[in-house]
């Protein structure tokens, strides 16, 4: 069987670990995996790589990583490009629709808005201080109502009259929801109210002061929620597009960036699918050689140190991939 050439993009996030294989000629997504990180990023990554290997064989031309665990993923995989998630999401959005001018990305624990002009990022913002405008908020409230998060959106769409929920803070939202239930409001109406509360939070915290213009792309895990999409559309008064691969757009962006970096002459640093059979361990300690007390993290593969970071002075540093500019 012939090996198929692909670019690998990985988005190692706090809630989900996403892997994507991208066709180098058509930029089509060949395989996508959406796994729960469950607080164990290395295991999630290794598991994902095994699943990819099972569907191979692949010839990986280049690897890009993104997400809050991009350094970790880069160290383990041997990445060619390490990129922050804002840029990665923007790149994927522009690839999906070159006319995109606003990207609304709502993930598990963070949410962002990216404004694009003439095909390049013009402005962006991320949530600060509060997570009331993110997927975690919906997860919690759905769990309280005993509803699977997958059914949330469609139930909300059945609402005839959305109830107003005080959504500034998840805790207060919960007390308000209980109160509204006790008043006799139906679950669908409460869910629709929650969607509106979350959209209000997003627009007033993350997107405050930003000019949202069409084409608007809605991506990130929460884009699966049709209730939120509808609430966004009615709040913005414009159509909101959800791309096919909305849930793995960060990984798509990382793969696109790996492809941009690829020249044909350069060799990838990819460590190979054999990493699925290795054991990885991370250790961390506080260096007490100076008053900075840096937190040092070391990643080892089968007992051999692979990468080490965290010190300000450069001590202990073991180069993985250089961060930042690509």
């Amino acid at each position, binding site marked *: 069987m012939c090996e198929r050439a692909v670019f690998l993009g990985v988005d190692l996030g706090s809630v989900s670990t996403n892997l994507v294989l991208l066709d180098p000629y058509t930029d089509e997504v060949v395989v996508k995996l959406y796994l729960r990180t469950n607080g164990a990023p290395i295991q999630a990554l290794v598991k994902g790589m095994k699943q990819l290997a099972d569907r191979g064989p692949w010839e990986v031309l280049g690897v890009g990583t993104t997400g*809050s665990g991009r350094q970790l993923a880069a160290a383990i995989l041997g990445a060619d490009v390490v990129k922050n*998630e*804002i840029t990665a999401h923007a790149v994927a959005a522009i690839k999906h629709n070159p006319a995109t001018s606003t990207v609304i990305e709502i993930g598990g624990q963070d949410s962002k808005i990216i404004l694009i002009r003439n095909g390049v990022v*013009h402005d*962006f913002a*991320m949530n600060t201080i509060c997570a009331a405008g993110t997927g975690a908020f919906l997860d919690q409230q759905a769990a309280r109502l005993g509803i699977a998060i997958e059914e949330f959106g469609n139930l909300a769409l059945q609402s005839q009259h959305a109830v107003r929920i005080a959504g500034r803070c998840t805790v207060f939202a919960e007390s308000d929801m209980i109160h509204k239930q006790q008043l006799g409001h139906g679950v669908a109406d409460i869910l629709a109210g929650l969607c509106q509360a979350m959209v209000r939070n997003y627009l007033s915290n993350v997107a405050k002061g930003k000019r949202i213009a069409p084409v608007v792309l809605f991506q990130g895990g929460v884009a699966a929620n049709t209730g939120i999409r509808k609430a966004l559309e009615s709040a913005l008064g414009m159509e909101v597009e959800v791309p096919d691969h909305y849930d793995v757009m960060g990984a798509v962006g990382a793969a696109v960036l790996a492809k941009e970096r690829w020249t044909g002459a350069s060799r990838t640093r990819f460590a190979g699918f054999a990493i699925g059979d290795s054991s990885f361990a991370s250790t961390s300690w506080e260096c007490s050689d100076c008053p900075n007390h840096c937190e040092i993290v070391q990643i080892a593969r089968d007992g051999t140190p692979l990468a080490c970071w965290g010190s*300000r002075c450069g001590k202990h540093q073991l180069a993985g991939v250089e961060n930042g*500019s690509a």
Partner: protein
Amino acid sequence: MKITFPHMGSLYIAVEALLQELGHDVVVPPPTTKRTLELGVRYGPEVACLPFKVMIGNLLEARALGADTVLMIGGTGPCRLGYYAEVQRQILEELGTGLEVLVLEQPLENPARLRGDLRELFRGRRVSRLPWALYIAWEKLKACEALEELALVVRPREKALGLTSQVLAQALREVREAGGVRAVHQALKLGKVALRDTGAPGKDRVHRIGVVGEIYTVLEPFVNLRLEERLGQLGAEVVRTISVVEWVRNHVLKGSVGLYKTTKLERSAVGYLRGWIGGHGLESVARANDLAADGVDGVVHILPFTCMPEVVAQAILEGVARDREVPILSLVVDEHTAEAGFQTRLEAFMDLIRRSERWAVHV
């Protein structure tokens, strides 16, 4: 009497020299670390701004080294710095630390108390040495700032990652140890040579990023998560708009006799903000406009969470960014700020700025 004072960047070098020349036994607080912040968060009010908490931590750590007196500055206006000293005094008293707090503020506010605190500060000291002490402290202050500003230019061009910060730390140490004005000048000269040496030749064009915001957050690397260093290592030359030398000139020298005017700032902020709103709010708006006129590639605005003057400035800066077509990134810091998210924003901001050049997305 063993005297101490809170940290703000490298300011301790000048303040230490001033007090030592006057014959004081000086205790410089240990460098600000996580432990300092933990102490401040534990004993400071939850709603206080981050600088306040860090300063409380500094003072408690200095007390553990034997300090018994604190020298603080005061102020007036909407910025909460005005009541820092008073609240610190109460907290330190309630904790039973025995630390006495002396406050220096503009004489127009409360002359009687200032006289009392000054008498305490100078009692049994070599008052005749004051002009000399001020002179050497002033020279040290200027030297530190000159070195730091040169480091901002050199860092994006450094031969090895982190080299500039190492050389700068060494140069500042030399300035601190310099025993006289001539030695200060010598240390400055050598430091400059060493800093220039860390740059790799042939890297002339780098992106320039201006930094505006609340003075303490701009100057204290622990609090701003080493903003200047991060930007430099991401390849940007940082333009500082906040200077203690300027601050002393404006607020201490001119301000204390009522001569400081904000006319120039107001002119820069025209169309956005008409007057002083406390702290560095007006400065942030004015400097962002100046930076845009100067053609920087971007502006980073940094502020402590809940800082009133800067929150006002933040809202106004959205308009400045739009009108002047200069990207502005506002970063809010408090004791919960996570390093990962901070770095992510800075990296994305640098990507945004490189858009027209190396990083253009080919569609």
